[in-house]
């Protein structure tokens, strides 16, 4: 099936690259919503089957090891998403 609609796509921003960036960002925002909905389904099925309840999730307190592992996950995630911002400095450091 054809993916692109025939016809010229308008340019909205002063730099057309921003138009592309918006497309990428919106697709990601959409996929986060899709993931959140899937998680919500899992939580509801689990509650319906008596595996665990939404209240248990809210009341959950991670122990020390879990909290550290999560901190690690978050740090890696943020670094991956914002990778492009670090590259400028890394390039400067490589040149020295």
């Amino acid at each position, binding site marked *: *099936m054809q993916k692109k*609609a*025939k*016809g*010229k796509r308008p340019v*909205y*921003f002063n730099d057309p690259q921003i138009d592309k960036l918006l497309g990428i960002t*919106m697709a990601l925002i959409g996929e986060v919503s899709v993931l959140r909905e899937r998680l919500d389904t899992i939580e509801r099925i689990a509650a319906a089957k008596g595996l665990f309840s939404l209240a248990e999730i809210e009341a959950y307190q991670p122990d020390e090891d879990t909290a550290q592992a999560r901190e690690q996950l978050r740090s890696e995630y943020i670094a991956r998403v914002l990778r492009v911002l670090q590259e400028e400095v890394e390039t400067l450091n490589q040149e020295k």
Partner: protein
Amino acid sequence: MTQQFIHPMLPQTTHDELARQNFIQTLKGYIVGQVSPGNKVVYEKVVKPKFEQEHQRSPKDRHEIRRLMQDEPYYQWWSALRRTHQEMMWESVACSVERQLPKLIEQAKDQGNTLGSLSLDPNFKIPAYQTAVDIHCMPGSYHGESTADDVAAGAVYDRGTYIYGMGWLGPLSDDMGDSLVQNYLKQQYPDFHPAKILDMGCAVGHSTLPYVDAYPEAEVHAIDIGAPLLRYGHARAEALGKRVHFSQQNAEQTNFADGSFDLVVSHILLHEIPKPAILKVLRECYRLLAPGGMMLHVEAPLYRDMDAFTAFMYDWETANNNEPFWSGMRDLDLVAVATEAGFAPDQVIQTFVPNGIWRTKTPNKSQTPSFSSRGTWFTFGATK
């Protein structure tokens, strides 16, 4: 949230496909409800006062307003967001349809001709004005086919337009036909019992089916240029138990005999074709109608019925949503065009018909945020 009626031809969704489509609907609600109104604030508080100070007058029409607004970052972001949303919307449906396309094609074949019929023309020529750009940015447009017996465009259209309008046309997307029948024809012409009805530019027959219910004795025909829409529309009508005769024909020139219909209708067809084609379609309506017959065309309102800023907002569709004829139609003198087509000027109808009849049938459903606040269908027509 109001849900689309799940008929046997409607493409099914996986969990994530549905979540993706849900996101698209919610995003549309946000854009329409939270972002769109800001354009007027920017215009009234910033753009217009600045222009008035410089020129000692207000911007005179939608063209002048557009030239001013297109430099405003707020308008740029809103436009870019709407365009991106439109593309994401088709993608969210197309990927789901593509996954199950072989099954949908088989299902469409299995529906057979038990009630109505389907007649396709293998030598049909799609008019050039429909091939220049893909209308509404739907990839492949309404006539594109990528495989034998393709129904993809119909399936994408059925689901996509529901998401586009956030259900504003009701669970069967039939409000244009249904409201015209219940809120206009049955009210204004209670003794009108058309024996033969034609729906021009029927797409998948969303608006066609209410006429089958409203006039059970009538023979209902529906034409469109898109073969995949017609295959899907025929199978959908059969699955819903409605007798309709679908055929692939251009409304400018059909193969029906003179005077063979009592009622000829179309629903948001005229703004998809250029002015010379509109005239030909109206001439064809005149030829097809029996004496005393009636044509009715449901459309979005004309520019003369709105202020310049509202017209400017409507006009966004022209260049940004591949609607090349959207504005041309809205500037037409319809009485003049209908007269040129053969109708008597005093027989021309221009009216606003209350819409949303489906809401009275499903009173328990909570309302989705409305796609549009307008509560009427602009209807243009004439009696012969």
